[in-house]
């Protein structure tokens, strides 16, 4: 499972982002997205496009953790969202690893990755890394989000952090990485 985590301000400005891979079940913590390296912007596009859903969900759902809210099927990218009370959005894109057999779709283009990929890996196990929509995953993501949120609050309390500014704190980055390693 590869992850792309982004914090966006209420006006969609990116405050923080980080890509990492799972550390569970032998993962090395390195993200391997299905998009080719030259197309990493796709992560941002997918996340950005899910804001349509976030905006809607935030009025329908009083919780901070909105769970899995959106999917980008062509790349089996799942988006989970967490909203701080002030409207900052935490968005986590998680993507199961590309199953080795997916070349059948001719997957050259971005648009033709895999549904089948999602379902086949779903079958393999119910561990966090394998199934993006299982209750275990939801729970793990929730824990992750909460931990990041705690650290986020501390970070933005720094007098040198101005609202809406990119979060460049290495401490925060470390904390997020740790949270990722711990939960995802």
């Amino acid at each position, binding site marked *: 499972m590869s992850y792309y985590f982004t914090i966006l301000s209420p006006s969609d400005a990116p405050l923080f982002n980080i890509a990492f891979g799972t550390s569970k079940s032998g993962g090395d913590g390195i993200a391997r997205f299905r998009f080719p390296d030259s197309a990493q912007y796709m992560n941002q596009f997918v996340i950005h496009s899910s804001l349509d859903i976030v905006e809607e969900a935030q009025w329908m759902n009083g919780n901070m953790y909105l769970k899995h809210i959106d999917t980008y099927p062509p790349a089996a990218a799942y988006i989970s969202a967490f909203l701080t009370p002030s409207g900052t959005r935490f968005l986590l894109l998680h993507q199961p690893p590309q199953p080795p057999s997916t070349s059948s779709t001719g997957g050259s283009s971005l648009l033709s990755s895999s549904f089948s990929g999602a379902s086949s890996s779903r079958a393999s196990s119910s561990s966090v890394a394998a199934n993006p929509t299982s209750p275990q995953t939801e729970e793990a993501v929730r824990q992750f989000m909460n931990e990041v949120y705690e650290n986020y609050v*501390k*970070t933005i*309390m*720094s*007098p*040198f*952090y101005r609202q809406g500014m990119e979060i460049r*704190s*290495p*401490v925060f980055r470390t904390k997020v990485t740790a949270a990722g390693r711990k939960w995802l």
Partner: protein
Amino acid sequence: MSTTKASRIGEELWKTRVDKINAELVTLTYGTIVAQLCQDYDSDYNEVNKQLDKMGYNIGMRLIEDFLAKSNVGRCANFRETADMIAKVGFKIFLNISPTVTNWTSDNNQFSLIFEENPLADFVELPDDGRAQDELWFSNIFCGVLRGALEMVQMQIEAHFVSDVLRGDDTTEMRVSLVRYIEDEMPPEEE
């Protein structure tokens, strides 16, 4: 007066005589002041340190009255006792912390305060401009406070930070040196 006694006094005063306010409020207020100074002085951190010290000095000169009124403690017998009073009573009642007094010089004129915790610096991360980490003493106001307060009780001291966890150091340490006792002037009221 022993260190433990000082601690007891501090504890007692903290419980009974001090009005508490929200720590985050203090933290944010102080942080904002520092950040604003940095902005006003265009990230000239030496100047910011100076200003913080000056502000602290002004605070200290007033704060000592309040301290003495609340604590009702007598004149300290020596500089060592003063150090304990600062650490265990002063910091305790104003900030609810008790820095460790250590690293005395043999002449008992210099000591260090080691801050295990520092409410002013909660949440703080120094600007990552490559200089703040080396130049800014974020909590420099403490130095001024001590200087101002002790001057009012006939001690001329010099205080400065030598390390700060905010800069990535292992400890936050302030060095305090007694320059001289000011003999010719008596404190305004005393017991």
